[in-house]
């Protein structure tokens, strides 16, 4: 099973100091988080994509390439890549290039994006959100697998005899997760292609999550990619830990209250009841994460957010230390114990290449 960190690169004032980090500080902080994540033994680092303040990751593959040069093992991914407003040709090119630079340590997560104004900035209409996600990914899927592509669609100018360069590393496209919080259509899309499904359920109660994941699993099996237990599922989480749970709660409360997404509604305690947010001890994070398996079945990837909402860079790195030293080793052991034999790991470049070579055998 894979464990990692995801960040959305938000530039938020620290409510306890009143200071907002600079964009320069945030970009550097994101790369340090990735390097730290590898140091402590985590498997994945993922960055979001945003095109407006108060966010910095408008050029995800630039950031990931820098990280690739300074790491050796960690898988570089996204949370998410905008499949709606980006040109699929550009996505194909950027991520294939990254694959070559990172020797295959790349996968990515498709998302529709949660920022309305982005659509018109890139010449799109938000009402076409789902249709864009479906059509653009269909093109991207072909660009990586067919050397020469003819294409006609609703949303992009036609292509004739087009080759996306560079071709994917070893002829193996990066593995794709489809990220959705509330869209059955995206679960269906992931199932159709036999791709992974990622539920970044940090803001959403578990009953909704379960229904969406169940749909993905059922349809994965329907499309003949394997049994529903073999479908590839990822989950998001959000943690703030201290060795004393009262300290964690006391320290994090101002960040919770200040948060656009979380604050101003139910109490932090109730929020933690209903969502994956865990503010407490490493043991509490272990317990809560193990419970995800009870709700959603065996899954392949668990990502944690530690730097959102203005938390200091120092505190974020401390979270990663605790994840690496105390939480993830236990989770690895416990999840492995509970996983039945037939359930696969998340695909990697190596495993996909091996599959491809096996399929090419006479």
């Amino acid at each position: 099973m894979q464990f990692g960190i995801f960040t959305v690169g938000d530039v938020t004032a620290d409510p306890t100091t009143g200071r907002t980090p600079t964009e320069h500080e945030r970009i550097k902080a994101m790369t340090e988080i990735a390097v730290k994540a590898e140091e402590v033994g985590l498997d994945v680092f993922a960055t979001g994509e945003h095109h407006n303040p108060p966010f910095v990751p408008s050029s995800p593959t630039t950031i990931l390439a820098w990280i690739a040069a300074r790491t050796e093992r960690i898988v570089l991914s996204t949370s998410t890549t905008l499949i709606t407003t980006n040109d699929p040709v550009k996505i194909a090119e950027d991520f294939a290039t990254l694959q070559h630079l990172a020797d295959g340590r790349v996968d990515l997560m498709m998302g529709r994006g949660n920022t309305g104004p982005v659509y018109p900035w890139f010449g799109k209409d938000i009402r076409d959100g789902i249709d864009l996600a479906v059509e653009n990914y269909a093109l991207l899927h072909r660009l990586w697998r067919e050397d020469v592509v003819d294409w006609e669609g609703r949303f992009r100018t036609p292509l004739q005899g087009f080759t996306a360069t560079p071709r994917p590393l070893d002829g193996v496209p990066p593995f794709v997760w489809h990220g959705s919080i509330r869209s059955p259509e995206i679960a269906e899309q992931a199932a159709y292609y036999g791709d992974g499904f990622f539920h970044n359920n940090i803001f959403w109660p578990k009953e909704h999550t379960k229904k969406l994941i169940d749909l993905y699993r059922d349809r994965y099996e329907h499309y003949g990619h394997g049994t529903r237990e073999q479908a590839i599922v990822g989950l998001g989480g959000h943690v703030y830990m201290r060795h004393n749970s009262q300290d964690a709660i006391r320290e994090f409360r101002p960040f919770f209250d200040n948060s656009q997404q979380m604050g101003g509604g139910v109490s932090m305690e109730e929020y933690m009841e209903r969502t994956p947010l865990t503010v407490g001890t490493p043991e509490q994070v272990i317990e809560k994460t193990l419970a995800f398996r009870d709700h959603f079945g065996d899954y392949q990837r668990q990502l944690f957010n530690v730097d959102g909402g203005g938390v200091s860079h120092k505190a974020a790195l401390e979270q990663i230390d605790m994840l690496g030293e105390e939480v993830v080793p236990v989770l690895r052991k416990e999840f492995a114990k509970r996983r039945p034999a037939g359930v696969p790991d998340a695909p990697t470049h190596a495993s996909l290449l091996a599959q491809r070579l096996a399929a090419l055998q006479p």
Partner: protein
Amino acid sequence: MNEDFNDYLPNGEIAPDRWVSATHLFDQGDPGSAAGAPREESDFERWERAQARFEAKDFIGAARLLAAIVAASPQPSAPRLLLARAYYHSAQLRSAEEQLRELIDRNPVEHYAHLLLGRTLERQGRQEEAARWLRMAAAFSGGNAAA
């Protein structure tokens, strides 16, 4: 193309018929080969969506879909009966009455339609008219008119 793809209910929950239409997204296979044509929704899919809305208690939404289905295919009784029930549950009593009378015309011994027509008239304060239909409903079902 289903215009409700980005639909959410007022409480933020996913519009119920999206669970249905999602599973038909790839009916025509690889969307890459569709040459940009918007997907046509089949009559069956529309019927499934209407039922999903009804089950989720979106009676007004269900009624809208069902009215179109019934207008397109007036013969089958199942959609018309569900339409009548959707009208009834969203207090569109005149419309419910109209559909139920049409149903009974086409299916003279359909007991549930009689029963529901009686209830619809009762809710409109037309007790005497209602009584007649309720008696017939009881006669057809062999049970108690008040059941």
